[in-house]
């Protein structure tokens, strides 16, 4: 009898261990479905506040680079202003608003916490549901594509960066337009992979890889990076393409959230496609 009680006591400890372990591991393994568990991420009120305070201290270390990037972008944008262009054909009417209507809006955000060396890398930005953020919106920086919003808090949101296992963003080659999917193998925070491009298509080294804009998350033709290396995959008619990412995730400070004004229409259109059993996770 005493042995039985002793055995039960030992078993009890293991039982508590197993129950807690199942809770922890199931949360970790299926966090994409547990996106509502906001208190467990840096989008929570207290955690977000702490990260914001930390960022207030550390953002100054990178101020010089951030300023240079923003100044560069400013000068580029200034060049595109009407005021800095010389009108060649005087007698023509200027572009009417009915021809070009705005499709994408960009909302600037500050990165308050980010990683780049984990299996899946997330960053926290200082925009939340009160700013109109929604799960699945695209995030870009002045240099290139950054990621997709994964969890939305009241004032902060969590962005799944392209340095993640199953990010699967539609991309294409700027020249030729052959399209594939973006992947990451965790080797280096500067390199991502493009899969699904057949190897009878010519792929030039250092040519640009851009977004395809298929799902309306990113505008079409926005830079992802440049092809640094490509080789044949043995036994498959596909290229193994290594892409040097345009954005350096080790020093990222400022991003923009992409708001697509036509998203409802695109979604309604794509929902009309009959469903097959394809898992779509981001």
């Amino acid at each position, binding site marked *: 009898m005493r042995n039985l009680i002793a055995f039960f006591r030992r078993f*009890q*400890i293991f039982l*508590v*261990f197993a129950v*807690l*372990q199942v*809770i*922890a*591991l*199931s*949360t*970790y*393994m299926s*966090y994409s479905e*547990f996106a509502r*568990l906001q*208190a*467990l*991420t*840096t989008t*929570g009120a207290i*955690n977000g506040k*702490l*990260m914001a305070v*930390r960022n207030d201290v*550390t953002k100054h270390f990178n101020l010089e680079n951030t300023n240079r990037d923003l100044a560069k972008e400013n000068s580029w944008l200034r060049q595109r202003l009407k005021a800095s262009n010389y009108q060649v054909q005087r007698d023509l009417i200027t572009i009417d608003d009915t021809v070009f209507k705005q499709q994408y809006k960009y909302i600037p955000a500050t990165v308050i*916490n980010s*990683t*780049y*060396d*984990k*299996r899946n890398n*997330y960053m*926290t930005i200082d925009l939340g549901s009160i700013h109109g953020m929604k799960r699945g919106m695209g995030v870009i920086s002045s240099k290139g594509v950054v990621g997709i919003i994964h969890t939305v808090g009241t004032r902060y949101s*969590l962005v799944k960066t392209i340095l993640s296992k199953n990010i699967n963003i539609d991309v294409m080659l700027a020249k030729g337009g052959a399209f594939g999917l973006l992947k990451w193998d*965790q080797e280096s925070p500067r390199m991502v992979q493009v899969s699904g491009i057949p190897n009878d298509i010519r792929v030039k080294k250092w040519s640009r890889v851009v977004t395809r804009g298929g799902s309306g998350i990113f505008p079409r033709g926005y830079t992802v990076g440049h092809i640094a290396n490509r080789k044949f995959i043995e036994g498959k008619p596909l290229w193994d393409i290594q892409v040097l990412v345009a954005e350096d995730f*080790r020093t990222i400070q400022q991003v923009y959230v992409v708001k697509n004004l036509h998203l409802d229409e695109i979604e309604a259109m794509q929902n009309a496609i009959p469903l097959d059993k394809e898992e779509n996770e981001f």
Partner: protein
Amino acid sequence: MNVFVANSIRFILFVLFQVLVLNNLEIGGGMYPMLYPLFILLLPFEMGTIPLMLIAFFFGLTIDAFSNTFGLHASSALVFAFFRPIIFKLFSPRDGYENIEVSSVYTMGFRWFLLTFGLLLSIHHIWFFIVEVFKINEIVLILRKLVLSLPVSFLLALLTQFIFFQKKKAER
């Protein structure tokens, strides 16, 4: 100082140091030093395994909340707490653990600390990186992360005790 108050303060300090300093080091090559297992080792000796595991679980969950890891640290801290009594029994000194409240390197000696904490920390790190990567064909990556992180974590834990626990030795 009251044991409860001392451990509460330690709880906060260990979380803050892990979240604000170690999480932001990002040295590269997969190195990720973790100091927080030392907190679980320093919890009182006479504590039962179940309260120990509950404390470790919430401790890990707090760190998870700040590093966007969704229960990874909680799971690893739990493993550490589960093995603590087992390893302690394995390496118990000849006259047992009588009259000892806290298991620091000063009260137990370096050899004991190297064996118990080294072994517990190895279990913790192996569990952490296997669950994090969770792919058998990336075993090289797991090993690399392990080899880079484990010595740094251990040395950090040793250093922390040399810096902050000296006073206790003088009192004795």
